[in-house]
């Protein structure tokens, strides 16, 4: 009798792959799934469960199902990919300098003079002074430092 394809294993691996490749374009866009990647981890768990189910089937009923070897390979590969992801998110993403010298609450914000996207010189003091003494005065400035190289 011809043995059946063990679809569960392949499906599980595809789920893990898709979890990996949807993190950056999809889940990173929403703070709820980016700050802690629970959606991605859930998908990983679902993928692993599918592979485990397929492997159990292949070993318990080898006369019915294929996939003993493929299951082990894809399962190992899946685990490696998940490990790679977790290492990136939970270890490498946390390798940021402590910035102990950053100005704290109550301290004066250091002034700066930088070029805007049109090449115009902009200073913090200039931004804060905008509209001073009028009803158009600025109440504050939010500085958002980011890594760049987009």
């Amino acid at each position, binding site marked *: 009798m011809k043995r059946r394809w063990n679809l569960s294993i392949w499906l599980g691996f595809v789920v893990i792959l898709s979890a990996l490749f949807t993190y950056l374009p999809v889940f*990173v*866009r929403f*703070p709820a799934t*980016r*700050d802690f*990647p629970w959606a991605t981890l859930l998908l990983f768990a679902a993928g692993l469960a599918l592979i485990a189910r397929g492997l159990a089937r292949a070993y318990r009923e080898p006369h019915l199902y294929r996939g003993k070897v493929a299951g082990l390979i894809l399962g190992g590969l899946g685990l490696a990919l998940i490990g790679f992801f977790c290492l990136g*998110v939970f270890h490498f*993403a*946390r390798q*940021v*300098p402590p*910035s*102990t*010298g*950053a*100005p*704290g*609450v*109550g*301290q*004066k*914000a*250091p*002034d*700066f003079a*930088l*070029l*805007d*996207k*049109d*090449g115009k010189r*902009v200073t*913090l*003091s200039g*931004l*804060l002074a*905008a509209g*001073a003494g009028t009803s*158009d*005065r*600025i*109440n*504050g*400035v*939010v*500085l*958002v*430092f*980011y*890594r*760049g*190289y*987009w």
Partner: protein
Amino acid sequence: MRSLEEHLGDFDARRVRLVAISVDSPETNRDLCREQGYTFSFLSDTNAEAIRRYDLLHAGAGPGGKDVARPAEFLIDSSGTVRWVNLTESLAVRARPGQILRAVDDLGLASSRL
């Protein structure tokens, strides 16, 4: 950045200016704003002068070992005093617009307008 742009009206209503700073050149920032539709200020700190002054240099962390800024957000009042700081411990976690707006409201920075 996208979520900040989406909340720009809330910042405008409080008369609080948003300013993004990185080591990217003005040309890169112009392209970024055009492609992504960002309308708030993007400033170029190509020599990381301001980044160093705020102690935010992440040495060698950019492509090709270039220096970049580590992500951080500062709320500064009209007198130039820092009123709220967010120094993230993970590159994947940034301040959400709601967090910053809440800080503005809790500190009463925009109370004359609300």
